[in-house]
């Protein structure tokens, strides 16, 4: 006896709706088993992890702070992935964006002008875009695989930041801590509401999500993205340039990751330090797929993944398990979402006669 996947004649609407819920349920079940294996009460731990963070105003603000960079990066990545360009290095573009965006407040701490913040944001976007331009250039000129090059550039960016804040950019009055001077007031992103820390980053994020949704749905550019992503040959027939699409999608996703980087540093950290991201750039890949590469879906999935970060912190504080557990949950969610999505296109069949079944899958 064996399991076999059989292609459905039509996409199942039932499973399109059911799949994310099924994935969430499976994640909770497996997560519960994990907590039980760790010797904790599964229900209590799951409650701490997924429900408690939603009960306080301050933690809702934290949720927004965590969700904003995830969503902002993920909508850019979604355009990339839709066009069949695989930018895995958003974490690096996030880091470089944070660095280039911080040039002004770090080097000119005495400059007090309302111009400084917009300039920082623009420079952050340019930095991120240029950094994503490296794998784009290599892909076009040398036919290298952008998955590898963009990923390797992440580590270069992180080590570069590390060197900067320990070396040339270290705050002389900072008691030898590896961090820059705190940014002047004009260089800090203002808060959105008086009730908490959530800053303007979420506004950029939602704006970007809506604009990209509009582009994908109503503009020729979005049409080019989906055509070239599904068939480069058909794109050539349409007269669309695959090379330009590599540039467009990589620079766009790099710029948004850079914007997320400088927003995070300016809005919630206030200075540069060796670690400025709990892996937003990588988690955003999960967010993008969880949101089905649709900018509005990504807004929803970004909040779900942000919750796993908060839950991890809460679990560490109140039940005393490592916050690595949030990574476990992120992995579980992605795994179950991808596998449950299979059910949209395939049905599962049990085969009791093994010899004849092999060839059937080919057809």
């Amino acid at each position: 006896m064996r399991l076999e996947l059989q292609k459905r004649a039509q996409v199942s609407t039932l499973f399109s709706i059911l799949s994310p819920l099924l994935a969430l349920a499976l994640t909770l079940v497996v997560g519960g088993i994990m907590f039980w294996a760790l010797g904790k009460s599964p229900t209590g731990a799951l409650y701490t992890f997924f429900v408690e963070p939603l009960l306080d105003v301050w933690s809702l603000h934290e949720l927004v702070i965590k969700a904003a960079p995830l969503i902002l990066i993920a909508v850019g990545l979604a355009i990339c992935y839709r066009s069949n360009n695989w930018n895995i290095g958003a974490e690096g573009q996030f880091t470089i964006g944070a660095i280039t965006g911080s040039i002004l407040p770090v080097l000119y701490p005495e400059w007090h002008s309302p111009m400084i913040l917009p300039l920082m944001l623009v420079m952050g976007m340019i930095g991120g875009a240029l950094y994503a331009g490296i794998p784009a250039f290599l892909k076009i000129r040398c036919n290298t695989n952008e998955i590898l090059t963009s990923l390797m550039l992440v580590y270069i960016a992180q080590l570069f930041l590390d060197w900067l804040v320990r070396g040339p950019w270290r705050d002389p009055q900072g008691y030898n801590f590896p961090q820059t001077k705190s940014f002047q007031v004009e260089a800090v992103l203002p808060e959105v509401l008086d009730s908490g820390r959530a800053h303007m980053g979420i506004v950029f994020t939602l704006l970007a999500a809506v604009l990209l949704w509009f582009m994908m749905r109503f503009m020729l550019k979005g049409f080019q993205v989906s055509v070239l992503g599904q068939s480069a040959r058909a794109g050539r027939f349409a007269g669309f340039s695959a090379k330009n699409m590599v540039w467009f999608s990589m620079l766009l996703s790099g710029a948004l990751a850079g914007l997320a980087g400088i927003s995070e540093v300016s809005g919630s950290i206030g200075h540069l330090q060796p670690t400025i991201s709990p892996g937003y750039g990588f988690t955003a890949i999960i967010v993008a797929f969880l949101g089905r590469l649709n900018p509005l879906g990504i807004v929803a999935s970004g909040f779900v993944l942000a919750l796993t970060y908060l839950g991890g912190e809460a679990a560490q504080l109140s039940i005393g398990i490592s916050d690595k557990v949030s990574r476990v949950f992120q992995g579980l969610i992605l795994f179950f979402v991808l596998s449950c999505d299979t059910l949209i296109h395939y049905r599962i069949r049990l085969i009791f006669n093994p010899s004849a079944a092999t060839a059937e899958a080919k057809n």
Partner: protein
Amino acid sequence: MTVSEGPEAKPLLSIRGLTKFFGSFAACDSIDLDIGHGEIHALLGENGAGKSTLVKMLFGVLEPSAGSISWDGAPVTIASPGEARQRGIGMVFQHFSLFEALTVAENIALSLDARIPLAKIAEETATVSKAYGLPLDPSAHVADLSVGERQRIEIVRALLQNPKLIILDEPTSVLTPQEAERLFETLMRLKAEGRSVLYISHRLEEVRRICDRATVLRHGKVTGACDPKRETPASLARMMVGTEVAEVKREGLADTGEVLVEMKDVSVAPRTPFSVSLKDVSLKVRAGEVLAIAGVAGNGQSELFDALSGEYPIADEGRIRLRGRAVGRLGINGRRLVGAGFVPEERHGHAAVPGLPLSDNLLLARSRSDKKAFLSGGFLSVLRRDAIQSAARRICSVMDVRKSGEDPAAGSLSGGNLQKFIVGRELDRQPSVLVINQPTWGVDAGAASRIRQALIDLAKAGSAVIVISQDLDEIFEIATTIAVISDGKLSAPYPAGDLSMEQIGLLMGGIHESHFGGEARYAS
């Protein structure tokens, strides 16, 4: 010719009620078929009629959903191709499974018992190939062989297992007429030895010539069993298609207008290790002319299409002219703006994106040429969905595209209906030049005749049409002028009436005009 035994005299293979479901779709629906000893049995049917599904069940590649197979009188189940071979069923697939980097003998060894030494296989290969009139050099590398020779390897490979039944799937679709002739001789020899052949084809003439009996399939059901020699091509076609196929009307074609397309000594280096280079290709097509370019697949047809369409522009601006304008370095959209339309060979993933709806696939070819109608919002280029959708509806009704739903995904249409849409998408613009590669490849007869008629009508209206095709019947049906492409070289054009099948065959094999005198007409 031996008289074939009737099915009563204990047939070699007998199937009853054989059915195969894919999901809820019956690809084969309770099929009955008998093949006698020493009989060449034709399996006729259009694309998608269920022929391939049926033989895959016979060869153990697919498991039947219902029904029974008896072999030599005893009921059997054939669970794998290995088991089929053991019982004495050999199969020559339409798409060869050969390793190009290996020699003939090595390729054959791969399908045999691993313990047989290679030298012995080479020796047997030579013997068998000589005995059946299939000349083959066992030590030649497959990469150096023609398609016809490659097919011989497959046949010899099947023969070495001493089969009682050989299944041939569309064997002549890749052969020149002369190569096909040779194949028929081999089949006759097999038949004389008492072996049976199941011959799958949609070419009626050859079925009438060589087959003793025919079973016709339509939509997965048997619609007729007959002696093809007593039928006419028209009556066989009726069984295959179910209705009378409209004959293409070509009165009033006159290729006397001004030159609309011109290529002058265009050479293109191969882009990949697997593509063919174009060598000094020249052609001229006038208004009202249908130039058909014949040739065996893989002789530079797609490279010629790429150069004409501008998907891969050439280096020299002046060597390609459309309506008098030098366009060599212009991309495909630039050439569309000059008034040309293009239909590539591959429907899925080249002419259309299967996952996108028809309206999007309309936009695919016309986002630039119909910018005013389909886009708004200036540099934002916002799509005017209503305009695009109504144009798609117009095309579907003009070309009689049958579809499920208002704007279904292109991939959900049958080959014929999608091709009608793709051709209609270009005709809708009234292009003054149309270049179309394999217009009716894998398309049902009804759709094919409709598309051919549309091409002729376009030429009558004063456009220049270039048809690249492997289908000689099609070429004779619609062409006013014929040229042949072979190994990237294009022959001189000949008026369609002056060329016989045989001459085309010679040209397809790469033997050029010098061999049959000064008949060539250089259209200048």
